[in-house]
């Protein structure tokens, strides 16, 4: 039994930024969006994340600017609190505890927020304004002119229509609604792609409506610009449509924005729009309908088809992102590096359409080749498959399509792997398929004549076609030195030598098909591990061709750390997943963690560390070479972190908070450090000499200085407190005075440079003299000198 001790599972990066509508600051310089448990503040000009407002302990469900103060924003969360932030400086101002999970924050805050000066406020006065509201946040809107009861009416009216539609069986259910800022007009979007403008709403029963139609499927978001001159709408088509208010035949389009538009928001000054997309992206658009910036998060669809992979060159996490693309995501910086277009086809934004999807990808050991498989499944006999091989281009610093093999197999491809060649070029790729074959693909040199073509550059072609008793191969794996290839044909594991493509041996452990195969690394390279569907994990010794050990566990994923002998097995047990980390040669697991998360874990990856950890703690030793990242069924990217690392991280983040009076931009990182060095040599030396102030008081001062002036109580109230904190006890006073004199002396030295040394001496020799006296003395001395000299000559 191994304790999991100080190793903890943490969320790591890649949280959703399109979950709720983002908020643009009044001056259009900042964009706030809810991202998991924090609110991220982006600069609209540079797309850079300035800071994350952290404090909530559960999913944030809404961000809203404070109407009365344009530098503050509210955020609400499922943890039952509403927090007020100063988002330019990233400071939590106030916390309102509501006590219930909040799903949506309204502009006219239904929860009465007491105006108190204290940090933590218990808000218990709830006024239930609306009940039974649909959980879709787009389905509610508040007009500025409309009073609350009008809103109620809107709601009832909506309810009424919903019922009516259900009777008719029509498709014009409401999907979103928005109010005109100045006029008596409400726009509503519908399931059938129509937009209705309802007018004269204040007069009971006399409303009229007009219909606008451009979208072919449901309108998912609607917004009026602040002046009310334009109406923006978006939907699945991923086209932002700008309608002129009162001239609805005039439209502007902004097509091909990416995924389906989920939210549109408009900055209060109307200069910028921003659209959130279903592919975890926020697009910032200038009011002239021109894209100015794109903020892209880690794209997580409903499921990941490819495995998680690490690009060997940039150490970026690779998985499929936008439809038909592979995304390269930097884990260190929590930022999407780029998307690689694999399918290279126009994506048609229409639901229910079968499109090409990237289902498999593999990198070779040096990162110079990438193999991808895309498939488009209609009916089983009409499966369209493409195997593409991409070469890394040093000039473009990206992958360039080298070979496309259409219909590489007759059935779906089940596994794809490159051999681990440490030095030199990879020239082989193995793919296994449901058609009962595995194929080895070979890199052919340029000028090589194959079939009716003369090849101009290096390209790939089929080298070997293998099969075993017409069984279906499910998985394949190369040994650490690439001298052996193991292919799992249902219950049988076949071992081949890639040099001559001979079948060397077969291994099996019936019943149950082999689901996962993995060779040991380094000192354990003689072991071959296989997980079977009959809840067994088997380890074969390849030297004796016999079973070394077998254990009963339902392994859903088996992984080998590329830098050590360790292997990780994710086991599915009673609705949740357990993790075991072990060495194939040793009987006891190094680490085990029960009930990691609910559901099966099917995607995980070992990410090599940049700096090796030197932890000798037994339980965390396995994390020395690599991180282990995994994706849960709910598509959360999690990782393991050791206590030591965590401490280091929190320490560094605290440091950041203290010195973070400037926005952390790349510029700051470049120049700020330099400037700090210029500014602070004195300050640093001073700090090292004078440990005078009590930590409590210094923190208080820091807080006082960092707090923006407009949120502070009046100066008269603070003054005495501040002065109190500056007061120093008796024995320290002497020291500090001396310090002060020292600094004064330095100041002096700038004025009277030639006299620097004597002044220092005088300062030291005569501590009893006051400053004025010293200065007088100095002047006299100077005068004396010149005069005396003149006399002597």
């Amino acid at each position, binding site marked *: *039994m191994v304790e999991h001790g100080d190793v903890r599972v943490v969320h790591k990066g890649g949280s959703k930024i399109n979950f709720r509508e983002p908020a643009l600051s009044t001056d259009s310089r900042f964009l706030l969006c809810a991202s998991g448990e924090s609110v991220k503040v982006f600069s609209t000009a540079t797309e850079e994340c300035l800071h994350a407002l952290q404090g909530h302990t559960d999913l944030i469900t809404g961000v809203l600017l404070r109407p009365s103060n344009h530098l503050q924003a509210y955020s609400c969360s499922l943890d039952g609190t509403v927090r007020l932030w100063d988002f330019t400086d990233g400071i939590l101002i106030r916390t309102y505890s509501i006590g219930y999970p909040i799903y949506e924050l309204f502009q006219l805050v239904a929860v009465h927020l007491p105006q108190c000066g204290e940090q933590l406020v218990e808000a218990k006065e709830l006024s239930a304004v609306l009940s039974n509201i649909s959980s879709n946040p787009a389905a509610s809107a508040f007009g500025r002119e409309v009073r609350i009861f009008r809103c109620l009416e809107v709601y009832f009216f909506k309810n009424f229509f919903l019922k009516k539609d259900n009777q008719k069986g029509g498709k014009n259910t409401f999907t979103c609604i928005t109010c005109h800022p100045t006029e008596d007009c409400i726009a509503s979007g519908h399931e059938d792609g129509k937009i209705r403008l309802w007018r004269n709403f204040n007069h009971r029963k006399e409303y009229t409506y007009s219909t606008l139609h451009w979208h072919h499927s449901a309108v998912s978001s609607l917004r009026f610009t602040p002046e009310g001159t334009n109406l923006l709408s978006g939907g699945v088509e991923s086209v932002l449509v700008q309608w002129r208010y009162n001239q609805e035949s005039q439209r502007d389009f*902004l*097509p*091909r*924005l*990416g995924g389906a538009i989920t939210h549109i928001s408009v900055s209060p000054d109307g200069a910028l729009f921003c659209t959130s997309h279903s592919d975890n992206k926020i697009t910032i658009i200038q009011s002239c309908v021109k*894209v100015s910036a794109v903020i892209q998060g880690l794209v997580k669809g409903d499921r990941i088809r490819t495995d998680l992979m690490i690009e060997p060159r940039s150490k970026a996490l690779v998985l499929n992102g936008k439809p038909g693309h592979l995304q390269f995501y930097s884990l260190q910086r929590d930022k999407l590096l780029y998307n690689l*277009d694999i399918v*290279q*086809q*126009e994506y*048609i934004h*229409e639901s229910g*359409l*079968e*499109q*090409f999807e990237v289902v498999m990808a593999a990198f070779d050991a040096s990162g110079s080749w990438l193999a991808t498989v895309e498939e*488009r499944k209609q009916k089983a006999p*009409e499966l369209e498959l493409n195997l593409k091989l991409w070469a890394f281009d040093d000039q473009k610093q990206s992958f360039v399509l080298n070979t*496309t093999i*259409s219909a590489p197999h007759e059935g779906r491809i089940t596994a794809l792997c490159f051999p681990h060649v440490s030095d030199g070029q990879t020239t082989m790729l193995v793919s296994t398929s449901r058609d009962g074959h595995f194929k080895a693909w070979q890199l052919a040199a340029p000028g090589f*004549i194959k*079939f*009716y*073509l*003369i090849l101009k550059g290096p390209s790939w072609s089929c080298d070997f076609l293998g099969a075993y008793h017409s069984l279906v191969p499910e998985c394949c794996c190369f040994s650490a030195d690439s001298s052996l290839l193991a292919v799992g044909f249902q219950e*049988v594991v076949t071992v081949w030598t890639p040099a001559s493509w*001979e*079948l*060397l*041996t*077969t*291994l*099996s*452990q*019936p019943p149950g098909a082999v689901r996962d195969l993995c060779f040991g690394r380094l000192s354990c390279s003689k072991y071959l591990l296989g997980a079977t569907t009959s809840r067994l994990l088997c380890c*074969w010794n390849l030297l*004796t*061709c*016999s*079973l*070394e*050990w*077998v*254990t009963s*566990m339902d392994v859903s994923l088996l992984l080998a750390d590329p830098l050590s002998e360790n292997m990780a097995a994710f086991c599915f047990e009673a609705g949740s997943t*357990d993790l*075991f980390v*072990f060495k194939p040669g*040793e*009987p*006891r*697991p190094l680490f*085990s963690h*029960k009930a990691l998360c609910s559901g099966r874990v099917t995607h995980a990856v070992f990410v090599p560390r940049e700096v090796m950890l030197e932890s000798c703690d037994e339980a965390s030793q396995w994390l020395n070479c690599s991180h282990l990242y995994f994706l849960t069924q709910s598509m959360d990217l999690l990782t393991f972190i050791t206590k030591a690392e965590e401490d280091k991280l929190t320490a560094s983040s605290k440091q950041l908070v203290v010195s973070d009076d400037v926005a952390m931009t790349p510029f700051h990182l470049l120049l700020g450090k330099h400037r700090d060095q210029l500014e602070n040599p004195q300050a640093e030396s001073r700090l090292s000499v004078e440990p005078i102030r009590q930590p409590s008081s210094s923190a208080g001062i820091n807080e006082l200085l960092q707090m923006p002036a407009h949120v502070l109580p009046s100066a008269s109230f603070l003054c005495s407190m501040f002065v109190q904190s500056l007061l120093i006890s008796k024995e320290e006073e002497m020291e500090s005075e001396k310090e002060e004199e020292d600094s004064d002396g330095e100041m002096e030295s700038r004025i009277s440079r030639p006299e620097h040394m004597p002044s220092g001496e005088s300062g030291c020799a005569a501590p009893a003299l006051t400053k004025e006296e010293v200065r007088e003395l100095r002047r006299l001395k100077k005068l004396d000198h010149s005069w005396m000299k003149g006399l002597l000559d």
Partner: protein
Amino acid sequence: MASYKPTNIPVYPKLGEKVTEETLYWKNYKTPIQIKEFGAVSNIHFSPVTPYNFAVTAFTRIHLYGLLSQEPVKTFTRFKDTAYCGRFRSDGQLLVAGCEDSVVRLFDVSGKVALRMFKGHTKAVHVTDFTSDRYQILTGSDDYTCCLWDIPNSAQLNTYQEHTDYIRCGVTSQLNRDLFVTGSYDHSLKVFDARVDKSVMTINHGHPVESLLLYPSEGLLVSAGGRYVRVWDLLKGGQPLVSLKNHHKTVTCLALSSNGQRLLSGSLDRHVKVYNTTSYKVVHNFDYPAAILSLALAPEDESIVVGMTNSILSIKHRKPSEEAKETAGHQRRRPSYRVYAHRKSYVPKQDDYLVSKPVRQHLAKYDKQLKKFNVSKALDTALETWIRGRKPEITVAVIRELDRRGTLKNALAGRDEQELSRLLSFLIANLVDARFAPVLITAAEMILDIYQSIIGQSPVVDKQLLHLQSLLERELDYQKDLLEVLGMLDTMFASSLPKIELPCSGISTSNGLPQGQSTASRPQVQVN
């Protein structure tokens, strides 16, 4: 905002012809120049000296052409009847030709009137040649005799009456002035030595001999007759070396490429075949529009000249080599200074702000329509006659794209008789192509679904549908036959391949430990 991605047109490998170094070499000729002669072109001979003019014997005339001219530079017309076998002397000064009227005429290349007339044969003379000492002429005639003539006094030196049928080909040795070979319709080749009175070697070709060729080394002799090309080793006393049967009609002419590495043969089956002279395999094949009577290659293979029965002379010139073309192109492309000076000379300075001009994406017509979601129009554009005929892969790619977008049915529907018959004719032409079948079968099914109600209303469409049906039935039969063949081959391979013994045969013993035993060695993986 991403730009529109155009439809992906897959590149299919060209089927039917293997690309080798050889084919690249022989493909590197321009489109042939065709010249109409007065009758069937019976002989072509290149002058051995520059400027490598060539003599074309056709009907009653011999034309001299320059290597690059399309008009004859000189014409010899003083023949009473059909002329045969106009050949140059090795210095290129004299030209000899036989004639149907049994007179052999000798011309100066610069003159018009025959210098000498050799009279002695009684029937048409089909073979004439100079000996290597330049002073004698060999002739062969339909009166079964061949003669040697002296040029200066136009006297008959020797007559050989050994053949028993028409003599239609002959060649003199270029190394020995006394040796010559003749081939006759009596199926035999005879090697003569002028120093003795009779033939020194007789070789049986087996068919009427149409053409003869001596290798530059003169160790090997090539004869063509019937459908066969045969190579004989003269140094081994006329031993047969190889027999080639690659034509399906009579082989009429032979030629060697300049370096002696390739042998060319022309035939009445309208093909010229190129053989490798080391392996005697066909490495390339030229097609011509009519039966080939004569064939010649310019020095260094600069051009291939072929004469045909339909009196057309076809001249193919070699394309200029790559680097020559490159330099020429470079010179041509260089812009004049005046026009481009203002663009070329201005280099942006360091502080300059470069305003990049948006690059306008060029889209094909069908892509423009697809971008606008005009599916029917896109399909119409892709079905234009030019695209449909020349590049069916574009049409198929557009159909595939429409299918992917789920709008193929909309695009196919609502067509009138003319448009529908256009669609159907495209299907008939390409449905059974293995490259296009998966896409087109879907389209064909949809067309049948949409238009089944109008069957019987238009005779044109009905006819095409019937044609399509018979095409499919034929294709099914083919596939069935192919599968049968595949099955037969499989059984043959299975029985002929040796069985491979696995080194670790005992799966049950060595690998799967008994269950009880394995529990003992099971590691202690337990969780609290």
